[in-house]
């Protein structure tokens, strides 16, 4: 089999693909930050909440971790309209991804709430720190530092996961690559370019996160 690479037929579509990559980044950010908030509240509930609330959080986490994301979004997109809740594909994917990320981020952040430094809290108390000062200057920096690497990881996972939106005709990077392929039938060219954009996107995000981590917490994360 011989195949001649003809990038010229596809190269005109690159700006269209890049605009899709922008949407990919948006979806990743939205779902990550909402999921982060959900996870933070849930982790606090698991650490300090009453039993019924803890049970509810466990049920949520168990459900979303043990079912595929695709099924969750199908549910939101196709089942909710029967109940009178009509969502755009974009909204359905964003909500599904947020809820899914929320479950994983609950588990991640639960560990952070367990990583208190008793010894440093003793030192702070003995030096006359108030409780608020102890939490702000001693407890939170540790939690944040301990959680930063897994949170950054989860963000990269969110970037990759956005490709699932293509199934719902959301025109993020994968969706647009699919469109360009239907137009040009240059599958190898289209998807190789798409792969390169994904790699560039991930590397840029990793780099930005590593630098941010180094600046905030002296986390010596490997960039590559």
């Amino acid at each position, binding site marked *: 089999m011989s195949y001649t690479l003809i990038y010229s037929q596809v190269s005109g579509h690159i700006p269209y693909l890049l605009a899709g990559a922008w949407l990919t980044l948006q979806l990743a950010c939205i779902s990550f930050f909402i999921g982060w908030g959900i996870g933070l509240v849930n982790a606090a509930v698991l650490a300090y909440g009453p039993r019924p609330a803890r049970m509810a959080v466990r049920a949520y986490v168990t459900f979303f971790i043990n079912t595929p994301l695709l099924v969750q979004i199908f549910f939101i997109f196709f089942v909710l309209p029967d109940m009178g809740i009509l969502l755009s594909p974009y909204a359905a994917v964003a909500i599904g991804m947020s809820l899914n990320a929320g479950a994983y981020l609950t588990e991640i952040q639960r560990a952070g709430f367990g990583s208190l430094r008793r010894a440093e809290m003793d*030192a*702070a*108390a*003995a030096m006359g720190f108030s409780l608020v000062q102890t939490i702000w200057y001693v407890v939170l920096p540790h939690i944040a*530092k301990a959680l930063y690497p897994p949170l950054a990881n989860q963000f990269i996972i969110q970037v990759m996961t956005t490709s699932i939106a293509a199934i719902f005709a959301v025109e993020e990077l994968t969706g647009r690559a699919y469109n360009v392929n239907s137009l040009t039938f240059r599958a190898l060219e289209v998807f190789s370019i798409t792969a390169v954009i994904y790699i560039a996107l991930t590397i840029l995000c990793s780099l930005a996160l590593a630098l941010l981590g180094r600046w905030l*917490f002296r986390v010596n994360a490997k960039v590559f």
Partner: protein
Amino acid sequence: MAFLALDGLCASYGGAKDVLSDVTLNFAKGEVVGLIGPSGSGKSSLLRALVGLLKPRAGQVTLGGEAVDYGSRQSLRAARDRFAIVFQQYNLFQNMTALRNVAIAPTLVKKRKAAEVEAEARSLLTKVGLGEKFNAYPDELSGGQQQRVAIARALALHPDILLLDEVTSALDPELVGEVLDTIRALHAEGITMLIVSHEMAFIREVATTVVFMDQGRVVEVGPPAQIFDAPQSPRLRDFTARILRH
């Protein structure tokens, strides 16, 4: 009158057994008190009780003529203003540089001017031999260096009494000397100290008074010569016999 007086102090970690039972001691200003005894004898608990990390169940602590009420936040704060404790495991704030570790409490708790505190923190760190390490984080320092930062941090609070809780126990043997030298220098300045230590030779050298504790009780109090060379109680005689054999 005694500068620091403990009268019938009892404390427990919530269990039925007291870790401190009926501890009565009096110290004068400028004294260096060595607290010795087997593990679990209540030495460290005594220091923790003084700074309110272990709430006394009964008894009275009087510092400079004022009774400390560990139930009252205001009184506790006043006490923590006058005691400073150095822990066995240093307990430095890992997310802060050496300089910030030393400077944070005076600025945050005592509301002193940041510039003035920082200048003092630099001179304190220089004094404990860490003039090159202002911006190092605890995990970049050796155990001995971390412990010296912790001592500088305690000194920055200008305590009336410095409490040293087995400050060399977590150190490699070759690092013990540098920390002991730092304490010797403080001793020369006449600062009042309560030192819990297993370094008997060191206690003998710097202490003006030695307290021997066992099972939460004070068994014997006296000058080093008495405690180490002519112990009165059988329990202390047993203890010294055992440690001097090594």
